[in-house]
Structures are given as C-alpha cells and as structure tokens.
C-alpha cells in the first residue's frame, strides 16, 4: 500500500492519523470472537469535507476504507478484512438540531446513544429516542445502519424504520442527501421520494459513509412501569406476544430465558403514561390481554419487586453488558436472529439444544420488533477471552446457530463475515446479483469495507 500518512495528516491533522502498532492492534478486533484483521492506518475525520477528501484519496490509491461508529456489533463488522484505513467517526458527534414539533433530531454519525439520551433529557425532556441495550457509547448511526432495535421498537419498529434521512459520502466521494432533506430544509421523512436509504441500510458499510442522519423522536412520558409474565410452555409465547402487542400499549416487549431459570420464559413489557390513571389503564389492558393464559393455567404475572423495577426500566440495561463476565472471561457474542414470532418455540428449543451440545450455559433474550411483526431472537454465548479453546467453542456454537436460524427461516442480524456467506447461500441468486450490480455502480473500485457481503 502506498504511503498516504502525510496526505491523511494534511486532511485531518497528524494527531488523528495513526499507523502505530497500538492502534492497529485495537482496531483490528472487537469484543466478539472474530479473528483480528489489521488496518494499515486509523484515521479520525472531523467533518464531511474531510471524509470526502479521504474517500477521494482512497479511490485514487485503491485503498480500502472501513467506516466505524462505536465498534460494538460484537460480530466484527468493523474489522478491516482487507486492510487499508479504519475510519473512526467518533469525533463527528455534534447534535445539529432537534425539531420538537415534528419530533426528530439531526445528528452527526459519531454521536453516541448516551450523548443523545443526555442531551434530550436536558434540553428536550418531553422527547426520547429508541435506545438499544448496547452500551451507551454505541453510535446512533451505527445502530440505525445495522437495522438495530431498542426500547421503543415494539411500537416503532427497527431503528432503520425510525430513520428520516441521511447525508452520505459516496464511495466515489460525492455527498448525497437521502430523504426529505434532499429537497427540503426539513428532515421529516423518507417519503414521498424514491427511498434511497435502502442503498445504505444493512450493507455493513460497503456502499458509503453516513455522515449525518435524522431519526424520529417519541414522547417521553412521566410515568413508567414494567409487567412480567412467566410461562413454562414455550408454545404459548408467540401467542402471548401477539396478544400483548395487539393492545398497542407496550413500548418494549422482551422475553428472557436463561440457564439460571431453566424452563421459564419471562416476558417483560414496559409501558409509560402521562398520568397515573393512564398508567393503570394500560396495565389493565395488558393484564386483560393475557387473562386467557392465566385461566388456562399456563402462565401468570410475576411480581416485579419495586427494588428491581429500576433494573428493568433502566435504559440501556447494564445487566446485559454484564453478561460478558459470566465466565469471568470478558467476552460474549450473540446471534440476533430476525424471525417471525411464530417461530418462537422452535427457536427456543434450538437454542437450548445448541447450548447443551456445546456445554455452554444458555442465555436467550428476545426483543419484539413492531407490533409483533417480527422479533430479534438473540442467542448469547459468554466466553473466556483468555482461553483460546473456549473462544473456538463459542465460534462453533455461533456458526451452528447461524445455520439453524437460516434453516428455520430466520435471518442472522448484523451477521459476521462468515455468516454473511451463509445468508448468501440461502438468498435468491437474483437478489445477490442485484446487490453486486448496485455495489459495482456505487463503488467501482471496491474500496468500501471489502470482504463483507461477498462469497
């Protein structure tokens, strides 16, 4: 690779370009099990214009670029599989504008979930965004671009569905605007224009670099509560989800299953209201929707002690991150399978079988996306980072899980490069051919995060 350090330093400042072994080491890997892939350089731009110049330079020299947000997918999506430049976007973390009336925020791509959360709390306390249960340093843009989900996903869908618009630096260096902001000063919607956002959502950074985006905001209500419904019959859970989501009062519905509580499926439903009366009314609606299961003696509401409610209402939930120390080894990775809710029971049984087969304690958490339109079924495996054999075992379990998810009819979410290949094997060939044609047009020199979505 041609030495472009100086040119990059001229663009972003020498202190924000590194080819030191320390940065190469850290930016070669993430917290999951994927093997490291080393960058030649790490660069931290501060503006869209700087990104444009870097992309133009990379095009000229045909050097790969891997854009990076929080780097917290756990599936190694920001490992530079073919070397080149890792572009860490976290310097671009300015919150540009909040439109209270139309409920959206425009922000730069490096803004973290936590920073927006705190900003809204301070300046716009009546509004909130859908926060994933990733650590708060995860970026808004990164989560939208991987089709993430979060605490308002039951009512609002995937975070990519909450996207109003974007500014993108194309692989050839042009800056384009997507959504209403392409024709209007307002970033209110992707409709009614041809929806070009799909060119960038779910592509693992292979089609461009998002520099700004607008996402929807939601009412932040004063009163919040959580209900927990427990059953030992996995066949009932899809119907439980169907009925609860049918009430349209829950903001977030999760199901938790763990080897610490073998056999139990616990459905957590959070909801909020502007008044205590409204909260009670919503609680009663949820209770009524699940009465059938209590009458049939196949499930019941679990008391969530007041002292524990804070943990369940915490956004994001820290105890999910804490799973990384389950094996006292600092690591976990999960397959978040996107699938229809009717697959719940089969998916659950499969998870138990895989965990038993590999001798790993099972931890499964499910987030309902949309009004029961689908779910993110996460099979999480903790591992000891200091034990190579343990890492290999979890890698094998993850691979097996991906295979079985695809067999069931689900699709692994934010798939690791090997899982992307598995998905492509199941994909309609014409769909994959279209993906390749689109990429060839957008990125003729193939510089954007190469190695992803490839056979």
């Amino acid at each position: 690779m041609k030495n472009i350090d100086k040119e990059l330093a001229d663009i972003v400042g020498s202190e924000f370009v590194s080819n030191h072994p320390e940065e190469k080491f850290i930016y070669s890997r993430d917290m999951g099990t994927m093997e490291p892939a080393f960058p030649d350089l790490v660069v931290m731009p501060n503006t869209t214009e700087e990104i444009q110049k870097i992309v133009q330079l990379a095009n000229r020299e045909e050097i790969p670029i891997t854009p990076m947000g929080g780097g917290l997918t756990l599936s190694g999506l920001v490992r530079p599989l073919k070397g080149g430049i890792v572009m860490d976007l976290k310097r671009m973390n300015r919150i540009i504008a909040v439109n209270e009336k139309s409920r959206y925020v425009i922000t730069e791509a490096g803004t973290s979930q936590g920073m927006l959360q705190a900003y809204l709390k301070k300046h716009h306390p009546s509004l909130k965004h859908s926060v994933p249960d990733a650590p708060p340093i995860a970026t808004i843009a990164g989560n939208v671009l991987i089709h993430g989900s979060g605490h308002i996903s039951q009512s609002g869908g995937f975070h990519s569905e909450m996207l109003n618009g974007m500014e993108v630096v194309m692989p050839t260096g042009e800056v384009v605007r997507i959504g209403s902001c392409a024709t209007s000063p307002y970033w209110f919607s992707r409709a009614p224009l041809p929806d070009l956002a799909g060119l960038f959502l779910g592509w693992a950074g292979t089609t461009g670099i998002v520099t700004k985006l607008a996402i929807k905001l939601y009412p932040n209500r004063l009163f919040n509560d959580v209900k927990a419904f427990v059953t030992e019959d996995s066949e009932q859970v899809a119907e439980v989800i169907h009925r609860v989501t049918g009430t349209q009062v829950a903001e977030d519905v999760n199901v938790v299953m763990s080897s610490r509580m073998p056999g139990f499926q616990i459905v957590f439903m959070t909801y909020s209201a502007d008044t205590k009366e409204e909260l009670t009314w919503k609680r009663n609606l949820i209770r009524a929707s699940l009465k059938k299961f209590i009458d049939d003696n196949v499930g019941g509401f679990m008391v969530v002690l007041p002292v524990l409610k804070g943990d369940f209402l915490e956004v994001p939930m820290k105890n999910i991150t804490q799973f990384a120390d389950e094996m006292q080894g600092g690591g976990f990775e999960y397959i978040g399978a996107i699938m229809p809710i009717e697959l719940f029971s089969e998916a659950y049984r499969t998870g138990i079988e895989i965990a038993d087969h590999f001798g790993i304690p099972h931890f499964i958490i499910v987030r309902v996306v949309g009004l029961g339109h689908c779910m993110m079924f996460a099979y999480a495996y903790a591992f000891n980072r200091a034990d190579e054999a343990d890492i290999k075992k979890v890698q094998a379990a993850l691979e097996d899980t991906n295979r079985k998810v695809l067999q069931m009819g689900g699709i692994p979410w934010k798939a690791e490069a090997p899982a992307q290949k598995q998905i492509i094997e199941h994909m309609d060939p014409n769909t994959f051919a279209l993906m390749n044609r689109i990429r060839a047009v957008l990125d003729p020199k193939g510089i954007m995060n190469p190695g992803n979505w490839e056979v």
Partner: protein
Amino acid sequence: MEYAEILHRCFRCGFCKLPSDYTDINCPSYLKFKFETYSPGGRMWLLKAWLNKDIKTTPRLAEILFSCTACGNCVEHCVFPAFKEDLLNAFIAGKGELVNEKAIPPKVRDYFEAIYLHGNPFKRLRKNRANWATELNLESFSGQTYLFYVGCLGSYDENGQKMAYHTAKLMIDGGVSFGILGDKESCDGNEVRSMGEMELFKHIAEKNIQEFRNAGVENIITLSPHAYHSFKNDYSQLGGHFNVYHYSHILKDLIGKKEAVTSGTSIPVTFHDPCYLGRHNNDYQAARDVLRAIPGIELVEMDRTMNNALCCGGGGGNFYTDILGGGPDSPARVRVREALETGAEVLVVACPQCILMFEDAIKSEGISEKLNVMDLSEVVQSGLP
C-alpha cells in the same frame, strides 16, 4: 504484572468512558486523544497484548499509559463489580512495568529524578520551601494540634502558594493551632505512586512517616487532595497512621456550619470536585458547605459534578508531564468551557493541581474576562461578592 488476571475480563464496553448520565466523554485521556487505545478498555487490552508479547514496548504505549490521570472515572462507572475496583491498580501496575523497563516518557523520568534529588518536581531548593509563609511568620511544627502540609505546588507554584497563604491566614484568624515543616517538608509521593514508581513512593512515604513521627505529628491538614489521599489511604498501609484532613474540612468547621442569608447582589460560582477528594474519598460536601455559608454566593452546578466530575487533566503527574495539554479537547479546556456554560463567574477549586491546569486553560480559551478561577480559601478570604 500485578492485576494481570483481570485484564482479559474487560469487555471494552465503554461505560468507563462516560459519566453516569452519559452526557459526554469523561475519561480525560480518551477525551483528548480520541483513539480507542487511550480509553480505559484500550489500556486493559493493550496491557494484555503487551504481556502476551503481541505488541512491543514503544513510546506510544508509554504515552497511552502515562496519559491516564488516575482520576477514577473508570472505576466509578465500570459495570463489572468483580474487578472494577482494580482498574486503576492495573494501570498503575502497567506503568510500573514500564518504569522497570526504563521505557517511560522523558518528562516522567525527569519528574522521578527531580523528586528523588530535590524532593519536588521543579528542582527548586528545599530551603525555599516555606517562602510562601514568610509574611505570615508561621511557626514550625512543634507539637501544635495540626501539621499544615502544603506539598510541592503549595510551596513552589504561584497559584499553590496563594492557596497555602489564604488557607493559613484563615486558620490563624480562626484560632487553629498548627505549624509547618518548612524545609523539612518533602513531596507526598502520590503522583509517584500513580505513575507506578513504587520503590520511590515507598522511599518517600517511609521518610515522611519518620519525619512526621519524629516531629510528633498526629493530625495533618493538607492543601492538596492528592496528599490527603496518600496520607490517609497509602501511608497507613506502610505503618503511618495519622488523622488526615483536607483544608476544606477545616474551613467547613470554621465557617461552614450554617447556611448564609443573602440579601442584595449575588455572584454565581461553580465548584469543581477534585478527583482525590471526590471519587477517591467520597467527599463532595465540605467545600460546598463552605460556599453555601458565604453570603452572596449562588452555587451553580456543572452538568458533570461530584462523582461525575470531569478531571482537570492534571493527575497522574500530567500537571507536570503535560501529556494531556494543548488543543481545544484538553480536559482542562473542556472543563472551563463547561464551567462557563453554567453562567458562573468564578470556578472554585480545592486542589493546587486543578488551579494550575485551569489557569492555563482559561488563558488558552481566552475567557479570562468572563471566568475567574479561585481556590476555596481565597473565596472565603475575599468574602465574595
């Protein structure tokens, strides 16, 4: 390396980079340098890689480790209770390994040498240590109730000297029985410890303990929270058991017992919690009680306050090595901007390192017309507004 067994348990989730409400980056070195390597998780993984010989000893690695100010934000906000308390210990142990390899930044080496040879980092003469007190005719310690230990910055730095002067004056006026060690005083060693030079720290601490014992010291008032922490928590592990107070505790006893009644004009001030008083020793109230007792002061809080306070960037020897200095994202400059945003006209500090860092930052930001940095004792002395 000590604490090597916890390095791989870090998930690098990044809670440690933030305050509890996630407002903004709260790890001083990550704030300044931005690369993941300079975050607490980056250090954990790099130390593990270094022990595994996946990376070599380099000046960059040394800079990454020694840019840690030991502010304790990572310990405060790490979500892994099983090992969070040892995060800083691991970083200090890592620095210690580089000390043993003599692979430390030149300014760190200079710091150690100066402390060893001169008892202060500025290579100043020991006989001048009490120059700040000349005007006050302070007594040498000879069995008074308290030893007033002013430390290196209190002895030699212009701002620190003012702090020492005002504090001593207030104590004299308040009838506090105290004396100083003068040219017998030596560095407390807290920064030496936080920079991993454990042998030198032990040497300093044992010498100081002996000096205190010989003088019959039982109670110590410190100017610096760093010395307060060291005397209170580290010296005791080496057999030096003293009753240790920070000067804010004494001021609180003198004036801070009741709420002031303000009539007429008031002046908005904000208080910056020193890491070694706050996060390291869980004391957030004494200085605030003092401020609340002064008529005419309106105490306004910054977004990041108490256990979420952003470090000034001076700890871990950085006030001297200046690894974190320069540029708009240096922690001190970020912090003075945050103070200004509150509408405060005065940024009150209670640590000689903080005042040094913030005085420079205010000049760099060009806001000296809008924001004044004052130490707590000077605020009391001046009787604002």
